[in-house]
């Protein structure tokens, strides 16, 4: 199904797992070396910087080639600009398929660049062509397009776009074709998200789908996010006003308030119970969303008090977890699984410098603000 050489991708997985097993001391050095000799990996998968560079160069090339032809064919191209881009999108996709069958690339930037350029061209042409048709049909086409790309390239970003378009089919379809949709819509989206989450989780455990691991991670994050958002009081309130023209408080307020506050802890609990990083991470992110929802309606306390209390809570929780897990317990540890990477440390330093600037920066007037950076950065979440 993939455009890549799957035997080689298997070898990459085996080599990675052999390295991990050796690092954990389960197999000896000699075994790891014999495994790697028997399973060579020859696809071109350079490091992240080359990948970004090659990706940008590829995108630039296609864009400029399109621009050049657009200038040359100015008269015809302007009259049917949608078809022009559709043709170029299909051409770029054809190049991707041909390149990958001939050249031995995997995640080299060239394939990413061609994937995204062709997908954006085709999707943009579809959006422009279907301007006057029903959005349901458009989203069905976009979902089909994204699904095809996902199956062929296993690109996680495109998989996520596909999920969002799929949810849009449900939203617009329900409004257009189901009479009582205004009351059922949140539950419909929640039900479909929950079903998709269970399906993707089951698929991910299946060995056959091993090359789609990252895609399925992202899709599961997406399903958990839409499940929460569909039940969130703020989202239901705003969407009810914007999409359905409802006024005032949404029906069943107590239910949506319960869902807004209870779902993030449930995700965290699920993640810890199953030792699954996806619901755990989503639950932690959504706590910020829950706090935001509460603050959008009830000003419980001034922002700086909330920040101090939130900070004390977060630092306190992590202190107790650090103390509790000094020695690994119940299969949990606070140590990093792989050795601490130099790049991650540098990035951490940069993020700290960017967000925690405690003194007035050049270009800002000196204000009695001590911690202006910190306050500004966090206030969006509270």
């Amino acid at each position, binding site marked *: 199904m993939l455009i890549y050489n799957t035997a080689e991708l298997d070898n990459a997985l085996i080599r990675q797992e052999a390295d991990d097993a050796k690092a954990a001391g389960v197999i000896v050095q000699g075994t790891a070396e014999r495994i790697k000799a028997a399973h060579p990996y020859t696809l071109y998968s350079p490091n992240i910087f080359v990948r970004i560079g090659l990706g940008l160069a590829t995108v630039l090339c296609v864009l400029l080639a399109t621009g050049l032809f657009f200038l040359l064919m100015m008269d015809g191209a302007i009259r049917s600009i949608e078809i022009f881009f559709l043709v170029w999108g299909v051409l770029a996709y054809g190049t991707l398929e041909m390149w990958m069958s001939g050249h031995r690339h995997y995640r080299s930037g060239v394939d990413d660049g061609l994937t995204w350029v062709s997908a954006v061209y085709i999707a943009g042409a579809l959006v422009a062509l279907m301007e006057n048709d029903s959005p349901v049909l458009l989203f069905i086409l976009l979902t089909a397009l994204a699904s095809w790309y996902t199956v062929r390239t296993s690109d996680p970003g495109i998989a996520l776009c596909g999920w969002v378009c799929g949810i849009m089919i449900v939203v617009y379809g329900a409004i257009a074709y189901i009479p009582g949709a205004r009351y059922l819509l949140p539950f419909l989206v929640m039900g479909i998200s929950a079903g998709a989450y269970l399906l993707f989780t089951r698929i991910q455990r299946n060995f056959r789908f091993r090359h789609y691991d990252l895609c399925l991670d992202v899709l599961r994050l997406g399903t958990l996010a839409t499940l929460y958002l569909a039940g969130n009081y703020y989202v239901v309130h705003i969407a009810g006003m914007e999409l359905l023209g409802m006024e005032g408080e949404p029906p069943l307020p107590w239910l949506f308030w319960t869902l807004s506050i209870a779902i993030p802890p449930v995700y965290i609990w699920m993640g810890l119970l199953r030792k699954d990083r996806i619901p755990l991470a989503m639950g932690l992110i959504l706590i910020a969303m829950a706090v935001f929802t509460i603050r959008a309606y009830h000003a419980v306390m001034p922002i*700086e008090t909330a920040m101090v209390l939130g900070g004390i809570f977060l630092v306190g929780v992590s202190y107790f977890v650090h103390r509790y897990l000094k020695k690994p317990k119940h299969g949990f540890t606070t140590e990093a699984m792989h050795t601490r990477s130099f790049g991650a440390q540098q990035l951490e330093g940069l993020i700290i410098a960017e967000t925690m600037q405690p003194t007035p920066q050049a270009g800002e007037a000196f204000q009695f*603000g001590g911690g202006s950076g910190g*306050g500004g950065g966090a206030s969006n979440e509270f």
Partner: protein
Amino acid sequence: MRKNFIHQLADEGLLSETERLRLEAQSGSRLFSLHWELKTMLYLGVLLLSGGLGTLIYKNIDTIGHQAILAGIGLLCAACFWYANKHTAPFTWEKTESPNAWWDYVVLLGCLLFISFITYLQGQYEVFGTRLGSATFIPMVVLFFCAYYFDHLGVLSLAITNFAAWLGIAITPMHLLSSNAFGTERRLIDTALLIGLVLTAAGFASGRFNRKAHFSFTYYNFAVHVFCIGALCGMFFEDGMLLLYTPALAAALAFYYFLGVRLRSFYFLLMTVIYAYIGLGYLVIFMLILAMDSLEMGVLYLSILYLIVSSIAMARILIHLNRKLKSHADL
């Protein structure tokens, strides 16, 4: 390891019987690391706490609670430094490993609170006088001291950005282009070049004299961006100064290219390629526009052709450089 792979490798005779059994036992019971989750919580906690306390001081400036908040911040800050000092190894000029992520953020919180404290004293009573831009000078000294004493990369990054702020420009990634009006004042461009030079020298000295040699990457990293962006802005905005800023850019690129080769760091090679690409592209299109009178529409076509050819060339150079440093995939 996945069960199917264990079977496959065992069938191929690559695993001994004990190794197969151990792999199967391990795939059932894996330790689950909460490292990054906890680290993110700590980061957000410290961000909220330092920002919130910093704002609290000024919001309550005329109330009775004011003194109490100041005293509270002072106490908390002292407690952070006491704890950090108690759990750190004695000072050396070598790299010291931090005890754990929790300790890292205690040091950071201590530094941030201390600076809120002295910034307040300075703003309210001008304790340290008004010369030398002391509002940023004193925090800078404190941050550099803490960075070296506790061997902390995050505090070092804060110190470096503070150094630049003291000289008048912002060099954090998001503010480098947005907060500095490089186009309006030549002084700012020259300041950026000066900061780039000083930081490069600091990075070089760290490695050369073995004083916290692992800090040199952080110095170089800020330096290469500040210097190259400064020089490029000089080329773009300062009329008639092309002959001054182009050689400056070329010299910096040459230095960082050889540095990248010496450190086997692909990151610096990539940065030199990107900045060289921007500089060269500007020069070529600048020349083409000068020839506008004779070429007319040809300028547009030639520019697009140049961009296509040069982006392919850049891709080839990147592939070549990557092969050259193949063994080193990280920074």
